[in-house]
């Protein structure tokens, strides 16, 4: 089984936000919820870099560890998914997540959160692959169709890579060797406890 990962090559990201738009459209993500976003560091200064960030599908995922109802699980492809039928919207996964991935619709009283929503690596949820219920709750299940996440597929500069961790790490390494520089695989140390030497 492949170990699925995301890798954002920040030296290529041009902050076009196509990944954000692709994700929103593919999964019909409601207003106010962003499964993916682009963050610009050192904006307007020398050394500025943009990084596209979503759920990194961590190894030994912290969200999964703190969930009081065991709503979050890791698939055989190492994709971290969750069940909206089991989630109670307590918000703990957001505090534990190193990447700010979990999102909550504002429903009910006070600041109370609805069922958590996050990047599914385009792999849907626990429902039957490609079913109507799955699409309504989690969006499209591209992985079941043999396709990779749309954000990465759509990336115009191929900055955002998705796929088997070893393969995308290899692609990144080759790029770094060829062009002579690379600012590193953002988030890999935190998410996967590993770095790509560059």
């Amino acid at each position, binding site marked *: 089984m492949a170990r699925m990962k995301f890798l954002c090559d920040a030296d290529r990201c041009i902050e076009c936000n196509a990944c954000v738009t692709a994700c929103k459209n593919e999964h019909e993500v409601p207003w106010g919820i962003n499964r993916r976003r682009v963050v610009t560091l050192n904006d307007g200064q020398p050394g500025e870099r943009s990084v596209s960030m979503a759920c990194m599908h961590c190894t030994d995922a912290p969200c999964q560890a703190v969930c009081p109802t065991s709503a979050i699980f890791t698939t055989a492809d190492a994709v971290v998914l969750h069940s909206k039928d089991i989630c109670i919207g307590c918000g703990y996964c957001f505090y534990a997540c190193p990447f700010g991935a979990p999102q909550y619709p504002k429903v009910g009283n006070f600041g*109370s959160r609805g069922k958590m929503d996050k990047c599914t690596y385009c792999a849907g949820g626990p429902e039957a692959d490609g079913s109507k219920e799955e699409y309504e709750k989690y969006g499209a299940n591209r992985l079941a169709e043999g396709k990779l996440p749309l954000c990465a597929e759509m990336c115009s500069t191929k900055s955002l890579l998705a796929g088997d961790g070893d393969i995308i790490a290899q692609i990144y390494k080759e790029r770094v060797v060829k062009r002579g520089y690379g*600012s590193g695989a953002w988030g890999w140390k935190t998410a996967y406890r590993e770095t790509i030497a560059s």
Partner: protein
Amino acid sequence: MSTLLRTFRLWTAMLALAGLALVATPAAPPSFAQQPSQVNPTADAVKEDQLLNQLRIINGRGTIPDVKSYNLEQPRGRDWRSFQEVTLPWIGAIAILGMLALLVLFYLMRGMVRLESGRSGRTIVRFNAFERFVHWMTATCFIILAITGLNITFGRKLLLPLMSPDAFTAWSQAGKYAHNFLSFPFTLGVVLIFLMWIGGNLPSGSDIEWLRKGGGLLRRSAHAPPAGRFNAGQKMIYWIVVLGGGAMAATGYMLMFPFYLTDVAGMQNTAMVHGIVAVLFVAIMFAHAYIGTIGMEGAFEAMGTGTVDVNWAREHHSKWLEDEAAKSRGAAPPSGARATPAE
């Protein structure tokens, strides 16, 4: 003449160029090879490692309204996870089970603290209807808040294996709503408790004596040291309820209205304070409930019917009894009671 000069200049220039080219050619390859390093775009690029060393949260600029999303990375989420997964359950288990073990041990050794002089048959009002209503409203809320709160920390390990995931979610979801809504009457109760009992709960000189003698609870032969309306132990419970309840309410409302006042680091700290204070609070309230029921004869009726036996008042709150008696008629305590002077 001028044409000759022009031709000469032209030739000289051409020769010079050719010479330059000859000189320059051997040096050219290294200068091309070095070019990438001269324009290395990562020379001053932001580095993740460097940022992580400097900051606990890597923050940038985003283009969506949600400012929380401008945090690119916060590895401290992993620390919060280990608190939530390991530290808090251990603190909670040790505090609560430890307290229960202590109480069982205490009961086995000391048994119920008896009324040594028996019942006089005469009673005195200790808590009026309003005070009892406030107490039981706060207590009911506390019990439900405690159970639903402990469910968040321990339910997954203790309860989920016993029931279906759907049933556990239904119960936890209901628990979350109960926890949110009952916070309001609980907070009101804490405020009322603070206001209506502050008079009797300010520290006084007799508290030291009471604490030194362990409230007369530790040895069967010991008499309770003199105390006013509330003894030092009750004063401690009062301040734990007021300050602990206040802390629970403040952190609880911050969690209930997330990110209104603070950022993700603040929310993590808030949840940690809420969790630690909560488990300690629950542990201490077990002791409170114990001494108010099976721990001491004649104690429960104070919050039950609102009246206590005069002998109970004399044994545990002699100064209060004297004050009450003095207040009512300026006379001595009722004569029906055994007239042993309190030590």
